[in-house]
């Protein structure tokens, strides 16, 4: 569905995309995960021929993508990071307008617009102007404008930024439904939980490069971290923290705001060993949390920094 090879995009001296490679298969929900400024939106804008790029080859639907390849554009839907609607048009008129750029037939368009409105749950707001909508509803309108024409390939660029949890769940469910209906989806976000929940394959990006790609299981298998341990500790001397770090199976330990956070290798008895050490040193501890590794751990281990930095 999408093949990007050696894509290079520079803004002056800054390399926004550094020999970026991507391949997305038909029917996937493909996630682009990375911190702000990692090049996710730039990659999408280049793929859509909205931005000039310095080097590289982009093919969509096995055809070279260009600004005037209207046949390809007709099959693509875009939901942008910023809400892109006309403030003077109602919810219905906005969706109808953008759908009309793809579907000239009025009767078919009417059905598609109604379907899109129902899909995002804006039936009660058809005659509302965008300024009367809440942030969550506005995002839903933004999505409806991008998908009303039933595209085969949909780019969703951080569609849940600044959205309340209820609307976020509704949006994520909607995206899954679009995929079930046959659309291939490219989803960018810096929310790792969303990407984990939604995407069949994930690319982690940093500084314009793909640093890891695979399913979430494959990505997590790439790193040493098998478990994250958090222990509530009132006071922990530096010496004991050092001892914990030397325990077998411990990758990294830190003490912060009365919590001992330990990254452990998967399997074995690392958790029990760590807690035993605390008991032996008469360190009283409260609640204990154990979690499997997250995509943030993947990012952390590869780049040495947090995904949210």
């Amino acid at each position: 569905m999408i093949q990007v090879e050696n894509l290079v995009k520079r803004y002056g001296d800054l390399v926004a995309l550094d020999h970026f490679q991507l391949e997305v298969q038909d029917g996937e929900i493909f996630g682009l995960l990375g911190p702000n400024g990692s090049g996710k939106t730039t990659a999408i804008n280049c793929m859509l021929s909205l931005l000039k790029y310095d080097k590289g080859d982009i093919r969509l639907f096995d055809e070279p993508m260009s600004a005037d390849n209207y046949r390809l554009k007709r099959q693509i839907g875009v939901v942008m990071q910023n809400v892109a609607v006309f403030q003077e048009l109602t919810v219905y008129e906005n969706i109808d307008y953008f759908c009309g750029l793809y579907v000239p037939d009025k009767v078919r368009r009417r059905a598609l617009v109604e379907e899109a409105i129902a899909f995002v749950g804006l039936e009660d707001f058809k005659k509302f102007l965008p300024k009367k909508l809440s942030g969550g509803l506005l995002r839903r309108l933004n999505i409806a404008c991008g998908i009303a024409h039933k595209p085969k390939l949909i780019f969703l660029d951080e569609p849940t930024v600044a959205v309340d949890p209820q609307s976020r769940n509704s949006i994520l469910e909607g995206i899954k439904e679009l995929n079930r209906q046959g659309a291939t989806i490219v989803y960018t976000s810096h929310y790792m939980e969303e990407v984990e929940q939604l995407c069949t394959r994930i690319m982690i990006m940093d500084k314009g490069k793909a640093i890891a790609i695979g399913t979430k299981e494959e990505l997590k298998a790439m790193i040493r971290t098998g478990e994250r341990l958090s222990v509530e500790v009132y006071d922990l001397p530096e010496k004991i923290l050092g001892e914990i770090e030397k325990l077998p199976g411990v990758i990294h330990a830190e003490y912060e705001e009365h919590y001992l956070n330990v990254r452990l290798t998967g399997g074995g008895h690392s958790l029990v060993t760590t807690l035993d050490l605390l008991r032996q040193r008469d360190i009283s501890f409260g609640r204990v949390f154990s979690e499997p590794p997250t995509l943030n751990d993947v990012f952390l281990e590869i780049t040495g920094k947090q995904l949210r930095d």
Partner: protein
Amino acid sequence: MFWNIYGKRIRGTLRDKDTLIWTWIFPIVLSTLFYFAFSSLDKEYTLSSIPTAVVMDEAYEADAMFQEVIGAVSGEEEDALLAVTFVNTVEEADTLLETGEVEGYIQAGEVPRLVLKENGLNQTILKSFLDQYIQKYSSIETIHREDPDHMEAVTALLQQESFTEEVSLTGNPPSNVVGYYYALLAMVCMYGGFQGMRTVSKLQANLSPVGARQTMSPAGRFRLVIYDLLGGITVHFGCVILVLAYMTLILGVNFGSKTGAMVLTCLVGSLMGVAFGALVCVSSRLKEAAKTAVLTSVTMCCCFMGGLMVGGMNYIIAQNLPVLSWLNPAARIVDSFYCLYYYNDYERYLLNIGILGAMAVVMFFITGIFIRRQRYESI
């Protein structure tokens, strides 16, 4: 696709209060202010009979020539110089002067006496009239006394014949006010620039998210621009016509009888304004607010040189900087209206319309080329 874009553009623009305020409400308010400020201006330049009292005392009764002169310059006609009230005594004349019923009074005598209360145009005319009478009377009397044989020649010379005739080519009276309304209409036409700017900014991916979304759609940008501009032009032209109708029908401003040609001028002026705004927006890399500032400044400069703020400025620019005057769209619009008002033939009017139309076409063409080739380094 045309009706989708065109119709939504019209609907959206009609809901955009800012646009309507500047292109419709503001000109209506300004024209109303013009109406109240300038309604007496034309009257100031129209001479009406001067209310004057004449004392019918013994000296007046005895002076047949003076009676004849007073009779000749007064009367019921509109163009009579004096509107005379005859009184019997000086006291009565004084009373009329005090109460303001007359501008002055004349008392016959060896040398007729003029009594005035205030200074002003009418008083100056009265004084000039009486001075002229005294001077001519004195000349005639001297010649009659010293060389009576030449009286006939003197009489012939004193006949006040006019060798020129005032003719209005279109039947419209000269007006000092109509120019302000023309300049205002030109300004409204030029405000079409905001419509042009809106179209282009909503289609440029680097200026608005809506622009980015439309750029990614399969609708060709050239087509998007044309359909959207047509919607903008329709709304703007409608606004100009409403302002023109308000001036003509509500304020009663006399623009002459060539209504069709005036509407055509408004249409071409609107096209010019919209094209100008589109070109300003597409040709620079400034942010939208900066582009708006540039457009507003240039528009107001054009209107200033077209005579909006200072009456007659268009003539000064035309005399001293003729090229600038010909290239100033606001001046061309104002001049087109003037031609319709004052000239019977359409030669100069059509030249103006041709220049405006050509400028609009060139601007639309350049805008189209810019839009079609535009891709972005950054968004």
